[in-house]
């Protein structure tokens, strides 16, 4: 199962879910769903997330064995 550290990165940058949603061009609900691992974003959105935090995709998303 794929998991992510989006909440860690978001709170580290002091972004609200709304602000991050605005930067990514998605709704706040989508950010919430990703953070809760209920929704797996597309590759395009994953790239955008990595770009916002200036990290690699695999730093944010990882496979939980």
């Amino acid at each position: 199962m794929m998991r992510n550290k989006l909440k860690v990165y978001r709170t580290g940058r002091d972004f609200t879910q709304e602000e991050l949603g605005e930067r990514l061009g998605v709704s706040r609900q989508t950010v919430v769903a990703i953070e809760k691992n209920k929704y797996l974003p597309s590759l395009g959105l994953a790239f955008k997330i990595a770009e916002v935090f200036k990290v690699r995709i695999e730093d944010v998303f990882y496979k939980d064995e």
Partner: protein
Amino acid sequence: MRRKDFKRIKLLISVFVLVVMIVAVFSYNIFLAVVGVLSGMLAVRILRIKSKQEIVDERVEKIGDKAARASFLIFTSILAVVSVLLVVVKKEHVYLQALGVLFSYMTSFMLVLYVLSYRYFEKEFGEDDEE
């Protein structure tokens, strides 16, 4: 334009269309209803162009896809079962049998439509092209 503003304006347009529709129904004015719906559609279209941003996010699209798929599956299954039941009903109920035949045609039409649209989108998103 921010997503919140877009949603707010869209809600205002929806309320406007609803009010126009209510007035149209109570005044038996079909012209007003048509104008109300068309102007609402036009306003939303202009709003989308003006906002110049990705309004429908991918999660919402996925939810829509899943809901459409589930609705199709449930509706077609029920229609198929009802049509079979109506066709095998006693011979004296001719109208019910005719309705059953109509329903079975509708079921077949929906399945053909599904296959055609599936083929179309399969091509759109790349066929299995082995090299």
